[in-house]
């Protein structure tokens, strides 16, 4: 290229850019905005959710066909921030239905009046009722799925070292497990918060901070988020980290079956779990509350409930669908997970997090 062609090249590039713009996101943006009052029978329904939401190909499309609704999904990176965003936008809600409020934030959503009761007709509604938030008598939040947040161990690591893996929360204080545990920060991670709640449930209001002091003194590592802990610090997830005990989910082990093997490399410690329940609810002030209710029913339908384990790594609330085989074998739920009442969580969360920070982070 000669120097004379410089400006022409620049010009061409600029023109290309402008041309590209014409067919890019800006150009199509308006058509996709949810408040475009659709002319079809059901109109548009907007689902507000977190980054982990996803369904197998074709499921949402089938719902759209059956219902005549157009579903718009808007996703937000941080599950914890989701409820706070909904609170902030109460007067002009971001959509019609929210999915992904967990029991650690459920009380705040209810107290702030972010969601309103809906008429749920799906057969699984009775199953969902089992997980209803205490005090939510009108059913503003409907349970969709659940999981247990539990410590996971790298069984291969322990077998190689000839060390017996820990089984309970208390056993982690044993000097034999010094420098072996990594958990995500409860302030910046929602499973991290769930594990903090597990210890509150296990040791009570007066005992949990002392337990964490013990963990700290036994070489606990705190990572920023679940991904950091699981992939970088943990030894059993493909990232080759140094620590064989990590906070993850009861549903994590099945994906660690090694190539050619039939037993997962990792196992969940079912005596260390906190049950996380995810709810959906029709947003107060929704433009399309009927559509939202239909979508809510759809989330409880057998099709979606059966799809949830494979697509979102959660357990369905419905008792009428089967779990995938490897889940049934390698990912049982805890029989007695630790519990903390949502109202207690709402009341003490900040105080507990602050105590936790003072104890563990310093």
């Amino acid at each position, binding site marked *: 290229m000669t120097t004379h062609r410089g400006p022409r090249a620049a*010009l061409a590039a600029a023109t290309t*850019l402008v041309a*590209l713009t014409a067919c890019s996101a800006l150009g199509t943006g308006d058509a996709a905005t949810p408040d475009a009052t659709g002319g079809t029978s059901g109109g548009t329904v907007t689902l507000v959710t977190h980054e982990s939401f996803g369904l197998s*190909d074709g499921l949402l499309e089938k719902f759209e066909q059956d219902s005549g609704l157009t579903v718009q999904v808007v996703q937000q990176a941080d599950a914890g921030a989701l409820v*706070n965003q909904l609170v902030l936008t109460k007067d002009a809600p971001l959509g019609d239905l929210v999915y992904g409020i967990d029991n650690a934030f459920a009380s705040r959503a209810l107290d702030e009046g972010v969601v309103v009761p809906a008429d749920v007709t799906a057969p699984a509604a009775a199953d969902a009722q089992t997980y209803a938030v205490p005090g939510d008598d009108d059913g503003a939040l409907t349970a969709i799925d659940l999981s247990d947040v539990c410590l996971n161990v790298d069984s291969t690591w322990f077998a190689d070292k000839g060390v017996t893996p820990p089984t309970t929360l208390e056993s982690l204080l044993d000097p034999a497990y010094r420098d072996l545990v990594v958990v995500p920060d409860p302030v910046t991670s929602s499973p991290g918060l769930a594990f903090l709640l597990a210890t509150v449930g296990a040791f009570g209001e007066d005992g949990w901070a002392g337990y964490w002091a013990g963990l700290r003194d036994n070489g606990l590592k705190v990572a*920023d988020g679940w991904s950091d802990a699981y992939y970088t610090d943990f030894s059993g997830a493909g*990232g080759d980290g140094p620590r064989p005990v990590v906070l993850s989910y009861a549903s994590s082990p099945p*994906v*660690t079956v090694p190539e050619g093997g039939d037993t997962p490399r990792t196992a969940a410690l079912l005596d260390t779990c906190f049950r996380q329940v995810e709810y959906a609810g029709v947003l107060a002030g929704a433009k399309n509350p009927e559509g939202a209710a239909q979508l809510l029913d759809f989330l409880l339908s057998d099709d979606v409930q059966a799809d949830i384990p494979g697509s979102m790594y959660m357990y369905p609330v419905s008792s009428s669908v089967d779990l995938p085989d490897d889940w049934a074998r390698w990912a049982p739920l805890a029989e007695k997970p630790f519990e903390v009442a949502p109202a207690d969580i709402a009341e003490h969360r900040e105080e507990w*997090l602050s105590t936790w920070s003072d104890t563990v982070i310093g």
Partner: protein
Amino acid sequence: MTTTLARGPAPTAPAAGRAARVRPALAWGAAVAVPVLFLGVFFVQPVAEIVGRGFVTDGRLDLSGFAEVFARPRTWRVVGQTLVQAALGTAGAVLLGVPGAYVLYRCRFPGRGALRAFVTVPFVLPTVVVGVAFRSLLVDGGLLGGLGLDGTVTAIVLALVFFNYAVVVRTVGGMWERLDERTEQAARALGASPWRVLTTVTLPALGPAIASAASLVFLFCATAFGTVLVLGGRRYGTVETEIWIQTTQFLDLRAAAVLSVVQLVVVAAALTVAGRARARTERALSVGGPAAAHPVRLREPLDAVAVAVTAVAVLGLLALPLVNLVVRSLRTPRGWGLDNYAALAVPQDTLAVSAWHAAGTSLRTATDATVIALVVGGLVALVVSRRPRGTAARRAVGGLDALFMLPLGVSAVTVGFGFLVAMDAPLGLPVDLRTSPALVAVAQAVVAVPLVVRTVLPVLRAIDPRQREVAATLGAPPGRVLRTVDLAVAARAVGLALGFAFAASLGEFGATSFLARPQEPTLPVVIFRLLGRPGAENYGAALAASVLLAALTAGIVAVCERLRRPGIGGAW
């Protein structure tokens, strides 16, 4: 971009174009109004609204939050940590980056273009990926585990330098490359040692560009949030991480508002200092000469030092984590292979799109953002490059300059949450922008504008005003002066600005991470989602997608570099 700038002062098309010839004041008015309106709607108003909520209780102004927040010892600690980390990060980036700018923009060697593109890659990597790239080296048992750096301030600072190295290299390099070599040659002919030439001729001439780069880096460092949390943890929290926690986790808008004001004060102070430094060193330079690049002269001690420093920075700091990333992306449950890359072509279970598709979305969104940023940033740079005679006018121009730097210095979460409360009906119009894909591009552009300004401005400012005067005396109307003098010079910075803005948009800094995403995810979002799922396949695919993002960025930056052939003035 060139066309953009050519039409710059008259963005409202032919009518304004005619006015520009008749009444330049009107055109300049428009050149100021368009960017100010953009910034007002998409930055100032959302930030004011969310910060305002923190200071209003039951409809009354309530400033008691200040006393409360300042009474917490933690507040003072995070302010101190913010300043220390940002200062160290800036110092590191400048010390390593200035020699890098010399080697990459003043020396000629095979592979220079590729290397220039390569150093920009860290700039776009999502923090979770930087976390993987760095931390898997630093953890116990990692390649550099023996250094004991995991979770330390040193790790944070190294990552900040990793991230910002390109900012210094590109900003300073763009200027260095077109410094007239004859001044240096004259000094040497008069007997000055190379060291003396460097310190008394070259570096002073580069002063404005170095100050420009340093202020950008300082802002990036002071508002870094993922990097700090992933590499250091909350122990080394900064004002930014504290705002994030107070807003997203506790919804304590009062504390967040106070901290936002604190952040604004810190940033304003930094900008003032940088502005002073720039003003002191700023002067018209001879930049009209041909681009002066010479082969590497390793016999000369200064060249040898510059090459050595650059080699250490590029190989040790930049390449090591990136190579680590590539190596990890090639590891599969079945041994080494390209499986993870093959997986990118198919839609990941439930992400609804393949990584390639997401890359397309990323490119389109980044293109939108880049166009917006170039128009707005180009206008700002043009206006700010003028030195009006009146003191008030000069202050106003300086104020405009600082105003457009603020998006880099104000917390992303503040802007993001501000969008939520302000964008349901911007300007009172009945358009809900909050869940529109357009807002993602706009949010990216807000962050890219200051980068464009800082890249183009030093070049425009270096134009000797006499050049314009001569042109005017020779009878050129104002529009023609603009075209033949300013735009001809600015066109050379276009490639740099373009690449920068594109990279910033691809990397999705700032408020984008807090926006509610419509269906079509961009590549960084897909990476984030993949890393949030268990399983070696997801992990591998996330790393492969990160490498794809890196390659995409390097490719685009390389193409943009080619647009900036020096010595094209005559064609205008």
